[in-house]
């Protein structure tokens, strides 16, 4: 009798041409997509030059997105972006996205329909795990793996064990996918899913939007996971069909699939959650914060929370209100499409009238690159995904991770605040 397999194991087996795999197996799998950005791809391009391959394995399956230090923040960044552009030209890479059509890679790829359900994707960026929201296996790798993937269309994997996360119920007002994943990381720790898959199942999934699911899968890496993956439902398939004409395959987990642990989460019990410096596991719910944590900056954007629903929620909070004196607010729509939608829906007017500023799509401040770097002693509330030491600038600055509504409420009150306080 065949072994029961998890969603992840089924995708890995199918891409390795195997009937079955089990946790611990080392396999070589075919890749549907290989991704890199302006930080990781320049290193990969150098490595690629040392591989005996004339060109990439498939010019339609390599994606290059200059998004981290782009628009070019300085001469060095300009040289790195130029390296991507030149390589894309030389190898006729169809999915190279220049300023004007680009966006933050993990918001851009699903939007462009480049990743669909059942795909196996590697990306030289740790948040590649975002595409697990589509029922794909997607994982972050380094530049050498990216170079090897570009050359051969293959990568080696150790088949992971998995944690099953069963979601039930429905989220309350001012609580989103971001709070769900912060809650989970707070519970299991930043290495709680080390080397493992986080597999999300349960009837609560139907109550989560795709944007919620992207935010949850995006931060699986912050629990150390190899990947996060969602059970596929009608909403997933509707999203995939709306955005892509690629063929997709649904790989449901077997009923007897093995999980090392099962975590049950009632979505209705989750509260707005804040991750305090300097780890995403340092979580407290907003109602547990009794002291006034005065802030200098708010960033709403990133591959975690830079999608349309994030800005529509933030706009509702900012509507008719003003940013507190002394607080700088940066709104960064993740893609050009989202930017245009925000403009057409009037959100930009709301943000600007409130006293916020709006940036072109970029990872920018999230990695302390540009567009909102912190000085010594400054505090930022950000809808991003990491709050490590020095992450957004000076080594003595602090980042607090929240959902967009808490970030907006904090901007208005000048301290970390729950939207119900307004």
């Amino acid at each position, binding site marked *: 009798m065949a072994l029961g397999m998890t969603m992840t194991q089924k995708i890995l087996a199918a891409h390795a041409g195997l009937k079955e795999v089990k946790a611990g197996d*080392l396999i070589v799998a075919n890749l549907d997509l290989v991704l890199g950005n302006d*930080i*990781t791809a*320049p*290193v990969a391009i*150098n*490595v690629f030059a*040392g*591989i*005996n*391959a004339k060109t990439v394995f498939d010019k339609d399956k390599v994606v290059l997105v200059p998004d*981290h*230090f782009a628009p070019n*923040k*300085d001469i*060095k*960044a300009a*040289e*790195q972006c130029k390296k991507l552009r030149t390589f894309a030209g030389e190898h006729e890479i169809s999915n190279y996205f220049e300023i004007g059509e680009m966006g933050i890679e993990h918001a851009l790829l699903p939007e462009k329909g480049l990743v669909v359900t059942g795909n196996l994707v590697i*990306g*030289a*960026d*740790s948040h*590649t795990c975002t595409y697990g929201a589509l029922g794909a296996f997607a994982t*972050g*790798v*380094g*530049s*050498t*793996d990216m*170079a*090897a993937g570009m*050359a*051969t269309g293959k990568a*080696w994997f*150790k088949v992971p064990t998995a944690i099953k996360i069963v979601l039930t119920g429905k989220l309350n007002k001012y609580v989103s996918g971001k709070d769900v994943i912060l809650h989970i990381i707070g519970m299991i720790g*930043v*290495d709680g899913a*080390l*080397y493992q898959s986080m597999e999300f199942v349960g009837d609560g999934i139907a109550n989560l939007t795709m944007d919620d699911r992207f935010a949850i899968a995006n931060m699986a*890496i912050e629990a*150390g996971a*190899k990947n996060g993956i969602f059970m596929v439902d009608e909403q997933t398939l509707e999203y995939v069909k709306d955005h892509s004409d690629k063929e997709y395959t649904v790989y449901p987990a077997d009923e007897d699939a093995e999980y090392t642990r099962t975590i049950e989460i009632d979505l209705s019990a989750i509260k707005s959650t804040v991750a305090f410096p300097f*780890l995403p596991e340092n979580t407290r719910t907003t109602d547990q914060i009794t002291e006034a944590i005065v802030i200098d900056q708010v960033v709403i954007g990133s591959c975690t929370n830079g999608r349309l629903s994030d800005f529509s929620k933030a706009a509702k909070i900012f509507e008719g209100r003003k940013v507190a004196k002394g607080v700088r607010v940066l709104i960064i729509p993740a893609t050009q499409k989202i930017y245009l939608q925000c403009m057409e829906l009037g959100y930009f007017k709301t943000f600007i009238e409130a006293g916020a500023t709006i940036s072109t799509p970029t990872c920018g401040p999230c*990695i*302390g*690159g540009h567009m909102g770097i912190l000085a010594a002693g400054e505090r930022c509330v950000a809808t991003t995904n*990491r709050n*490590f*030491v*020095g*992450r957004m600038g000076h*080594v003595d600055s602090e980042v607090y991770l929240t959902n967009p509504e808490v970030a907006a409420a904090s901007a208005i009150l000048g301290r970390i605040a729950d939207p119900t306080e307004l």
Partner: protein
Amino acid sequence: MKTQGKVFRYGNNVDTDVIIPARYLSSSDSEELAQHCLEDIDADFIKNVKPGDIIVADKNFGCGSSREHAPIAIKAAGVSCVIAADFARIFYRNAINIGLPILECPEAVAGIEAGDEVAVDFDTGTITNLTQNTSYQGQAFPEFIQKIIAAGGLVSSINKNL
């Protein structure tokens, strides 16, 4: 292959942002990256590290970003080996791919202190603390990974098969 060096000791969750802060990622020059290695948690590291020295850390070393610049910076700083209780998975892959020796051994980590002189035998996985006169058995790599290392890293391993 063997190595011996003085230990630089760190705690849990040393992330790739502190191994090499993003503000330096507009360079992919290994020597330049090495100059800023670990500066946000140990400003003296790069002044004091000598070729062959060893980093010992607790759990989840290399968590966070996938930047290969992190193991590149450590290797270029002259570090001959990183020993940790466990590693974040992308860092683990990257270290193997670029030829930075790493070992998982929670017992050794518990028994090694900053400044200890430690010797590592990669063929056997034996870690010897010369200062405290103790020795530990590190976890050997699976054969599949040993082949990548033996070939001289992922690129050489792929070139053999192309």
